[in-house]
């Protein structure tokens, strides 16, 4: 008879060897985008402060946004925003007690991903149109 110590015991899943799934990835993404958006929140205050300081300071901040790296960061920020927004709405449905069937969880998860891409594209298209 095997002793307890020598029996093969189940190991707890370790994140490094755990197969990524839509559910876990989106959970992590919601967190990461939240942290990323914190940096953009700081930038919002910088933007407002520049606007309050005067046209010259505001033009400097606007030129940073207008640079290619600024544009790249803004698109990333908008995508993070939509991922966090859509993911957050998904969480609010869960908080209200809806959408817990596994099929629904996967459907809403893919909806979050697809909607975020589409909304980011729409934002980019609209702002490009507005810029003329």
């Amino acid at each position, binding site marked *: 008879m095997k002793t307890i110590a020598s029996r093969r015991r189940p190991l707890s899943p370790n994140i490094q060897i755990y197969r990524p799934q839509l559910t876990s990835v989106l959970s992590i993404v919601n967190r990461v985008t939240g*942290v990323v958006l914190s940096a953009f929140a700081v930038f919002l205050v910088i933007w407002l402060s520049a606007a309050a300081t005067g046209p010259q300071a505001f033009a400097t901040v606007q030129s940073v946004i207008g640079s290619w790296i600024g544009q790249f960061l803004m698109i990333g920020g908008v995508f993070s925003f939509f991922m966090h927004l859509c993911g957050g709405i998904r969480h609010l449905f869960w908080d209200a007690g809806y959408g817990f069937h596994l099929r629904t969880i996967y459907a809403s998860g893919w909806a979050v991903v697809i909607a975020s891409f589409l909304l980011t594209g729409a934002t980019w298209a609209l702002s490009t149109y507005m810029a003329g």
Partner: protein
Amino acid sequence: MTAIALIPLTVWFLASVITLTGRDHAGVVTWLRTPSATICMVLLLVALFYHMALGLQVVIEDYVHSGARFPVLIAIRLGCFALAVTGIVVTLRISLGG
């Protein structure tokens, strides 16, 4: 609660920023001086930084287990508070300034 408030407020902000694309300082100031924009911006700043403090707190509590935890949590609280106050003050300066 802050999440629900932030849905309309952030969408309003993004929509506003899209329409402001390409506008200069005067255009942005004119926009922010309208009463609805001032009110929405102040509400956005309050909800945003409260939401950010709560969110970052959870992240720190999950990953920081050393003695640094408490000071970091305090720093996040104070930082978010300072950012919210700064944002509100500059918004009101734009809105009410001469």
